[in-house]
């Protein structure tokens, strides 16, 4: 089956990201596909390339990136939730006259419509929240 995950917890504050990453590995191990991870609410903080966790703790941003590389999983970040939280990419930075950016490929800023569409293109959506 083709899965999508909705992640809504900040990465170093709540367990939601950890649970979602473990669930991702397990579903792949069972032969399913992980098509999309959609980040909403404080989940958008998972996309920050500026996150600098201690060396002896899991690097969650890196773990998401690896999912994309190895499985082709789309990493979609709700743009409305992200902008107010300072999770902006180069294009939004330019548009709002900010120097620097927090999001880069393979994370993509996108609209909520993509979350709605998940149900037509995936078999299961599982939500991980704080």
């Amino acid at each position, binding site marked *: 089956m083709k899965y999508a995950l909705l992640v809504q917890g900040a990465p170093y504050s709540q367990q939601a990201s950890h649970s979602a990453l473990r669930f991702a590995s397990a579903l792949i191990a069972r032969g399913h596909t992980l098509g999309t991870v959609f980040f*909403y*609410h404080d989940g958008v903080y998972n996309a920050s390339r500026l996150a600098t966790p201690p060396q002896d703790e899991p690097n969650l941003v890196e773990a998401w990136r690896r999912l994309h590389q190895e499985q082709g999983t789309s990493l979609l970040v709700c743009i409305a939730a992200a902008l107010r939280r300072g999770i902006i990419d180069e294009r939004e930075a330019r548009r709002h006259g900010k120097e620097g950016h927090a999001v880069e490929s393979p994370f993509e800023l996108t609209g909520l419509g993509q*979350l709605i569409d998940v*149900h037509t293109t995936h078999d299961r959506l599982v939500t991980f929240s704080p």
Partner: protein
Amino acid sequence: MLVMLRHSPHGSSWLREGLDVALVGAALGRKVHVLFLGDGVQALIAGQTSGPLGQKGTHPTLDMLEMYDIDTLLVDGESLAQRGLTIDDLQLPVSLVDAASLPRVLAEHSPIYSF
């Protein structure tokens, strides 16, 4: 689709972000029903205002639901009762869901979003 709203207004952004999912779903042509449950029933209390710093609140968005053809607003009766509320306290006409019907509401909808 069913959007379950379980958080109160002003205290966090859960309610606003859940309502945004309902609106976008409707804008994309989905048939959207909304279920208010737990603290979410407090979203419907009449007479809410914007926050003291100008935070918009969610009550104006509730008034917009009908424009988006979201006219099935379901409210868990027990959640209301626990909080001393009746449908007369609410800003919009709603359909009460009793204890026996609540599981059926969930069973009859797909997909379900929970905020």
